[in-house]
């Protein structure tokens, strides 16, 4: 006991989260910091999830504003705001909505509330703390696109979120905000909550649709690349993330110009980031998109306030378990898709995991790989077999059973899932992991498992080697010629 973190032993003390440190007792994890609050504005209220509180604080005003406009004008407003998808890929919502083929009705809206990417923790807060904002966002999208059916798919393990959404929908139906003749208009739409049941891959949009059709949640073959062409029941379908849709009420009330007044030009508005790991004040922060840097977020007084006492940064994951890892030299990048992409990773799902100098790079990589091996849906061979082998090889290195050829083997398996270039010799950390990854797989889950392995081998190859050379040579069992098996 006593030795901290991933090197073994129980870490103590845990970071302080007493009131006054910015934490809201009723919203565990959320930190109320300075800055514009477009989606978490209501979180300060303990009863933020009720219809009464929502309506008393401007709830459903965005819907009313939208109903005053033509559907096409609402769509234009979303397009003008450059509202980027918050689910991982960062695709502009207004552009995606434009992919619905005219005349091929009905269309469906599916809300992706399956949040399960390691490190990601924001959609759950939005669903638990402000379900009416999400419902309002769905209504605005349905109005703009001429949709009469919306499915809100919530991760199976999130019992409280399901409870809050069910209660909010019941209240919203009763109050005339959802269902037939919304707010006395001729706009009618049903919103139905659906459940997941414990499968990370269901977060992938085509797998989500399969699951909603009552099947195993396995991704569909592409093309078509977007469910907007062929989605639920073969019909054009928009899949949007919870946070993406939660932005719509503010956007409709305040307009796209005001929206673009926050954040940077290519990434307007705010974004929720879950910053976890070895920090003084880990938490979920609503941050101005595109302008804040990793350094400010990690060290700034308004944010995480630095690495925990007595330690230094070793590495960090900038965008959820699927993202290639970053190091100290990346700290000054802004939280914006393009520069992060150019540096070889992604902001992904807004999950940043900070690891300090006590962290064993191999063990950390192994844990993320183990996740992907466990969650691979098994539909394609490179992912099913490859992730399993990556995990087993990393495990044996950790157990002191590593073989000298294992580093090359890891890279070779990685290359089969996500073809390089992985210059095997480049272990000085100078080159980025290729991103976006090329893939031999149906979906990006397979390549996601390669990212942590290659990232850590590049930068901490010596840690791998130290673990491997410490072991005794493998005894080779010589089977005499002619011996039966």
């Amino acid at each position, binding site marked *: 006991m006593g030795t901290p973190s991933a090197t073994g032993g129980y870490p103590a003390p845990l970071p302080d989260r007493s009131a006054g440190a910015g934490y809201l007792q009723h919203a565990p994890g959320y930190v109320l910091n300075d800055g514009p609050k477009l989606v978490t504005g209501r979180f300060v209220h303990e009863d933020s999830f009720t219809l009464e509180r929502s309506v008393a604080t401007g709830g459903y005003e965005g819907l009313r504003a939208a109903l005053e406009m033509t559907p096409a004008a609402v769509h234009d407003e979303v397009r003008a705001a450059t509202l980027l998808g918050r689910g991982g890929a960062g695709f502009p919502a207004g552009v995606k909505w434009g992919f619905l083929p005219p005349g091929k009705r009905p269309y469906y809206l599916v809300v992706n509330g399956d949040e399960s990417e390691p490190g990601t923790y924001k959609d759950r807060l939005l669903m638990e703390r402000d379900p009416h904002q999400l419902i309002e966002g769905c209504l605005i999208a349905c109005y703009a696109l001429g949709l009469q059916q919306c499915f809100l798919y919530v991760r199976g393990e999130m019992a409280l979120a399901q409870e809050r959404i069910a209660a909010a929908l019941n209240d919203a139906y009763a109050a005339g905000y959802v269902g037939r003749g919304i707010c006395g208009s001729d706009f009618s739409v049903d919103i139905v909550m659906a459940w997941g049941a414990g499968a990370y891959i269901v977060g992938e949009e085509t797998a989500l649709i399969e699951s909603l059709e009552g099947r195993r949640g396995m991704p569909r073959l592409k093309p078509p690349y977007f469910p907007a062409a062929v989605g639920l029941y073969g019909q054009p379908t928009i899949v949007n993330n919870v946070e993406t849709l939660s932005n719509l009420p503010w956007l409709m009330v305040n307009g796209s110009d005001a929206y673009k007044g926050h954040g940077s030009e290519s990434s307007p508005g705010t974004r929720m980031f879950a910053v976890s790991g070895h920090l003084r004040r880990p938490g979920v922060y609503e941050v101005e998109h595109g302008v804040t840097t990793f350094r400010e977020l990690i060290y700034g007084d308004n944010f995480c306030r630095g690495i925990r006492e007595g330690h230094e940064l070793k590495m960090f994951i900038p965008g959820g378990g699927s993202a290639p890892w970053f190091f100290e030299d990346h700290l000054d990048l802004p939280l914006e898709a393009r520069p992060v992409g150019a540096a070889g990773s992604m902001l992904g799902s807004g*999950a940043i995991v900070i690891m300090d100098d006590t962290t064993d790079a191999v063990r950390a990589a192994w844990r993320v790989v183990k996740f992907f091996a466990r969650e691979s849906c098994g539909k394609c061979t490179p992912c099913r077999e490859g992730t399993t082998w990556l995990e087993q090889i990393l495990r044996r290195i950790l157990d002191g059973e590593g073989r000298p050829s294992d580093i090359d083997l890891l890279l070779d398996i990685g290359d089969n899932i996500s073809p390089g270039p992985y210059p095997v010799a480049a272990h000085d950390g100078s080159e980025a992991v290729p991103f976006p990854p090329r893939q031999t797989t149906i979906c990006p889950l397979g390549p996601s498992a390669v990212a942590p392995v290659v990232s850590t081998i590049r930068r901490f190859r010596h840690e791998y080697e130290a673990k491997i050379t410490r072991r005794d040579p493998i005894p080779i069992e010589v089977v005499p010629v002619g011996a039966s098996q």
Partner: protein
Amino acid sequence: MTLSPANEALAAEIIGWFPRPRSALIPLLHLAQAQDGYLTDEAMRRVGELVGATPAEVKGTAGFYEMFRFEPVGTYLVNVCTNISCLLWGGEELLEHACESLDVEVGGTTDDGMFTVEEAECIAACTEAPCLQVNYRYRGRVTPADFDQLIEDLRAGRTGIAGHGVLAQVRQSIPAERLAGVFPPEQAREAPVWLARNGADG
């Protein structure tokens, strides 16, 4: 057990909200699991009848999803997260402590049938590491002492956490007169009225 009369009624209501009955499969399996604590063969057969799937299809689908159980588990399913953020704050050690103090292996159930301990993947509470769920209700920044206290509270029935299988305590329900109307896709080809009113596409 097959579905109770109350659950039959709920099932019929849920099926009515989806354009195709098969879409109600996972919600109905959750209903069955809430009823019995796990999925019995009888309940799965009944759910299959209701949504138009064979028993093999039902079981094949249910088996893909980790939350569905085909055998009884403890009254309280304790899922300890050991994924990356929790690992950094001692998630593995917490899992070890859980297994030691309850005298079970990972995945095992205590002799009195009270607790099953599982290793969980990220449960979206990473800033509250190390964290766990008991029947999908959260506890964050759990020290070994907190864990022991939690177990004591659960044994004494002091937590208000329902038995395994029960998720949300509130269910969605849509009064018939408020339902906008659910149709299979082939009966919903028309552009909705508010678009037509605005002269948009058909």
